[in-house]
């Protein structure tokens, strides 16, 4: 059994007990515990079930590499699945549930599939679900969906806040162990700007557990002093609970700070994602111990040797009362010694090497610990907990020499440097045969914007496992002056690479040797993949799912690669590694979204009159990031009724439209006319001062990108109106051509869109409204159609444009944005006696469609040229050039076979669905029904009391009167006649009034 020891525990505070719940059961932990430590202290070794076979799973590790001990943490709006108990700090009131089990952790019905595991080999899904094909949709997919995913998704909105922050440093050091601290001291003393980040809540890493003295003092003391020194340096920032999750291009590092995971609801943000620009990143990220592959190595109670001594030394927790240590190296003897020091029984050390000759085995023997050389574990006994091990010769095939009873197994297969941060941005690795590890190749680092190295590694991350060497390497990595901190450490004998235990194990044993604990990938699966031709490590990974779980193969990858290499009879470096990709450990989606939720999910653009619209019950239409009133419902009106009322009122009285969102770009300069002539298809240089002209803009590929009214303000300045969505884009388009192509032309632009609020006063009584406001002559003579004047209607400084997008008598009045709301209110007040009502964008659309005016984004979609829209009149034939002219001369553009704009009138008066296609006879090359047109705009016209539409139809204008078939939902066909697109006031008498 596992239990809390009566003394020791360097990280715990025995005076602060904590109460928490696991699967509903109350348990007690101590301040300083990780959840894993608390669970072990409560004799809770079985904490979850594996993904595929629902095998019982215990705690394997003590840190971020943990593949097994994942739980659902928190409740309700703070629930989160797949949290590692080994990195979760226990706090009072914590609540965790085990995962992937039903009905309960102890008795899981899904575990039945464990008995059938030989029917679920690598590639099972690919093989099984291939046939019969019709089964896919109704049988296999629902089946897979039901069993897919580890843990449960949260059901409620996250109660916590998250944020991001930017930081800049000469040196970012990932890892606050002795290597990181040494590097920080060196860089800090050299005056560099240093950020030192440690993923756990404690400085010092493994060194205080492993116990080698540094500079003549206990490691703990040295660490404390180092931290104190660093805290005194103004150029050094230290941060705990912060994991550097990735290194990206040009020294960009992401680090996730778990600000309040251990104190939920205290008002602080839960996570903070640091976006750091680092001159150099030093990965002092240590190394991860590897499991050994022996049969039953996944049974709860089998643990990494280093983790076991962490639990004893850091948290005074004994994972077992009687432990067998199995190893291929000297380091694991430290665990045997720590256990013995704690008064626990070490039944034996099983050493796969023919002889154990180092200082540490000697110390173990001196303590009376039995050491078996050249031995391995044939299989682990036990089901939900280890009950013993069967010993065999490592060189043999697994014949049992001896049974040893025990309740825990500490294993060590050697160490893998944590090279993730080095590798993320292209740092290369070399295979170190002596250490049986991939370590960074210092000669091939990831490089930055000047081609300089942007990462280095320090200490164990460089592949150095000896304390003195770790300190020297870290000191050098940070460019330290003078001697590195010194350490004394025992001499360790070389390790022996052991990839399978015993070496000659047959299929029965290999099918019980786990590589990837979380995804249930075994030695036999990798070998099967190799036999089936998966020779690339990347393919094998995906075929077997090795290393694809939430732990991303931290404990399994190297073992898997070694097994694959052996099976393929090739050296490990030939096989290579899979690609290391960020994040190193999962980061919360919340920290990625940060502040972007709720009201500030994205910028919403509001006009100066926004609040007035809202108070008047506007329904909103998103147009780009703008919110425009769609219509204003009154009382019990439906949206359609409101739109109809707004259209009829505008056409019979007067309507007010907030047109502030229209783009307004000032173009001024000696070459402004010439510039606009290039930009628009029409001619703007000849526009008289005080006049307005409709303009159409194409890109140089010939397609329509925007339209709007251009106003000549003065001899050298024009005001270009753009669409609501087009203002920023068109301003950028103008600047692009001015800066990059015609840079010697004398033209300035200014985007004045937001400087002005604009109100469209529309309808037969529009002029009377303005006359009521007073202050300016708006008569037909003073201000005819397509003219503009400056004035002070109602006392407001204004530009008044006599332009119309509705076909009615219409004035658009621009006033400074700060006065927009006041002007709008003045219009509403002055219009009261004329029945003035505000109208929204839907009424605007209906009225422009009744007039046959195009709308960018409806009639155009990036493939439409002006000629398709019968807008030849807006194209100057005389100009030698404009943007798009050459493109429009291409044969396909000039083809008579193009789809062109027409009006469409349904025979039954109904409204055609937007986007409906007109079908033609026959099928195309893909066997699909041929089409000959599509609906681009379609509305109910309350004035004409029927559906009206516009569409692009093959040779449309030549087919007036023809009836086309539009299949609609439900298999019905709606017939519509090709007609002129102008449905209302064809002669323009109203707008010219």
């Amino acid at each position, binding site marked *: 059994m596992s239990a809390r020891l009566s003394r020791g525990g360097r990280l715990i505070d025995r005076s602060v007990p904590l109460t928490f719940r696991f699967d509903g059961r109350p348990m007690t932990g101590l301040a300083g515990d990780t959840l894993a430590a608390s669970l072990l202290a409560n004799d809770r070794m079985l904490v979850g079930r594996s993904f595929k076979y629902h095998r019982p799973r215990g705690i394997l590790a003590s840190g971020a590499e943990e593949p097994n001990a994942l739980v659902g943490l928190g409740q309700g709006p703070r629930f989160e699945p797949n949290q590692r108990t080994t990195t979760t700090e226990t706090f009072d009131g914590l609540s965790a549930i085990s995962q992937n089990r039903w009905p309960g952790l102890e008795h899981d019905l899904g575990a039945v599939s464990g008995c059938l595991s030989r029917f679920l080999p690598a590639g099972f899904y690919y093989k099984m679900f291939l046939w019969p094909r019709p089964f896919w949709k109704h049988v296999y997919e629902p089946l897979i969906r039901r069993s897919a995913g580890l843990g449960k998704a949260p059901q409620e909105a996250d109660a916590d806040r998250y944020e991001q922050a930017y930081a800049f440093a000469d040196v970012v050091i990932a890892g606050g162990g002795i290597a990181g601290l040494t590097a920080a001291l060196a860089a800090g003393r050299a005056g560099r700007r240093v950020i030192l980040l440690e993923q756990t809540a404690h400085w010092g890493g493994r060194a205080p557990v492993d116990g080698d003295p540094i500079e003549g003092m206990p490691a703990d003391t040295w660490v404390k002093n180092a931290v104190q020194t660093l805290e005194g340096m103004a150029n050094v920032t230290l941060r705990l609970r912060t994991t550097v999750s990735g290194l990206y291009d*040009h020294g960009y590092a992401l680090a996730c700070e778990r600000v309040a995971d251990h104190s939920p609801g205290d008002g602080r943000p839960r996570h903070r994602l640091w976006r750091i*620009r680092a001159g150099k990143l030093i990965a002092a990220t240590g190394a991860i111990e590897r499991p050994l592959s022996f049969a039953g190595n996944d049974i709860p109670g089998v643990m990494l040797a280093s983790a076991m001594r962490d639990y004893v030394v850091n948290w005074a927790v004994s994972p077992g009362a009687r432990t067998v240590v199995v190893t291929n190296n000297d380091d694991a003897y430290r665990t045997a010694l720590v256990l013995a020091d704690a008064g626990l029984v070490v039944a034996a050390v099983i050493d796969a090497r023919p002889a154990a000759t180092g200082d540490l085995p000697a110390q173990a023997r001196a303590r009376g610990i039995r050491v078996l050389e050249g031995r391995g574990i044939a299989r682990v006994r036990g089901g939900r907990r280890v009950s013993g091990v069967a010993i065999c010769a490592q060189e043999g095939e697994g014949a049992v020499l001896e049974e040893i009873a025990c309740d825990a197994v500490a294993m060590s297969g050697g160490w893998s440097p944590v090279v993730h941060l080095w590798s993320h941005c292209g740092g290369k690795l070399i295979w170190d045969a002596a250490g049986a590890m991939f370590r960074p190749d210092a000669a091939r680092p990831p490089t930055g*914007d*000047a*081609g300089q190295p942007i990462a280095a590694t320090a200490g164990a991350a460089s592949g150095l496992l000896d304390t003195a060497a770790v300190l020297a390497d870290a000191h050098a990595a940070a460019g330290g002056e003078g001697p590195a901190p010194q350490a004394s450490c025992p001499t360790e004998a070389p390790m022996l690479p052991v990839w399978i235990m015993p070496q000659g194990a047959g299929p029965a044993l290999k099918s019980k040797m786990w590589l990837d604990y979380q995804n249930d990938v075994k030695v036999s699966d990798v070998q099967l993949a190799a036999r089936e031709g998966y020779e690339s490590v990347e393919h094998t990974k995906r075929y077997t799912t090795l290393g694809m779980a939430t732990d991303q193969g931290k404990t399994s990858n190297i073992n898997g690669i070694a097994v694959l290499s052996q099976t393929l009879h090739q050296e490990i470096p030939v096989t290579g590694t899979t690609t290391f990709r960020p994040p190193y450990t999962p980061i919360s989606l919340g920290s990625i979204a940060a502040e972007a939720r709720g009201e500030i999910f994205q910028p919403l653009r509001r006009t100066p009159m926004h609040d007035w619209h809202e108070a008047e019950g506007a329904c909103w239409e998103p147009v780009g990031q703008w919110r425009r009133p769609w219509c204003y419902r009154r009382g019990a009106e439906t949206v359609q009724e409101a739109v109809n009322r707004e259209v009829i009122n505008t056409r019979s009285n007067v309507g007010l439209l907030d047109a502030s969102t229209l783009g307004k770009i000032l173009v001024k300069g000696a070459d402004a006319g010439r510039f606009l002539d290039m930009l628009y298809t029409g001619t703007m240089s000849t526009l008289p001062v005080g006049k307005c002209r409709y303009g159409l803009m194409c890109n140089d590929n010939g397609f329509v990108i925007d339209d709007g009214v251009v106003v000549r303000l003065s001899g050298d300045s024009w005001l270009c109106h753009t669409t609501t969505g087009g203002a920023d884009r068109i301003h*950028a388009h103008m600047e692009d051509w001015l*800066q*990059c192509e015609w840079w010697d032309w004398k033209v300035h632009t200014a985007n004045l869109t937001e400087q002005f609020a604009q109100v469209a006063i529309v309808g037969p009584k529009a002029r009377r409204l303005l006359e009521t406001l007073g202050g300016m002559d708006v008569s037909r003579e003073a201000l005819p159609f397509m003219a503009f004047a400056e004035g002070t209607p109602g006392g407001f400084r204004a530009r008044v444009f006599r332009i119309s997008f509705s076909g009615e008598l219409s004035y658009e009045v621009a006033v400074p944005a700060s006065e927009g709301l006041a002007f709008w209110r003045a219009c509403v007040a002055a219009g009261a006696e004329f029945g003035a009502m505000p109208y929204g964008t839907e009424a605007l659309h209906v009225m422009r469609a009744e007039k046959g005016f195009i709308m960018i984004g409806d009639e155009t979609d990036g493939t439409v040229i002006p000629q398709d829209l019968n807008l030849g009149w807006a194209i100057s034939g005389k100009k030698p050039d404009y943007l798009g002219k*050459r493109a429009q*001369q291409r044969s396909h553009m000039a083809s008579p076979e193009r789809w062109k704009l027409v009006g469409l009138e349904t025979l039954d008066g109904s409204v055609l669905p937007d986007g409906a296609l007109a079908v033609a006879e026959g099928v195309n090359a893909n066997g699909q029904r041929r089409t000959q047109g599509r609906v681009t705009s379609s509305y109910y016209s309350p004035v004409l009391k029927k559906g009206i539409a516009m569409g692009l139809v093959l040779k449309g204008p030549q087919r007036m009167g023809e009836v086309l078939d539009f299949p609609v939902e439900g298999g019905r066909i709606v017939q519509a006649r090709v007609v002129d697109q102008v449905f209302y006031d064809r002669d323009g008498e109203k707008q010219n009034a």
Partner: protein
Amino acid sequence: MLILTCPHCGIRAEETELAPGGEAHLKRRGPGHSDAAFEDYMFARKNPRGVHFERWRHAHGCGKWFLAARCTATLEVFGTYPARTSGPPPDILAAIRARRPGWEAGE
């Protein structure tokens, strides 16, 4: 995430402050040019592994367009320069050759 120094305002801008604009030094082909020349201008783009010239706009900044000479494989930046030029200036070419001996303009 890239950093490019805006040659107009001197800011070492990160990618989120910039807007990309595709290949640099294209020659506009308007009316009077053949279909082939127009096609080349409008559609044919280099996609080199190695030295590449690109357009960038300091969008969340001074708003100016600039050009960057960059290695598409290593992301090394050889230099940035104002867009008001029809070809890479000599100092940029020299910087590229210093880092990529044997590289020839027009590759």
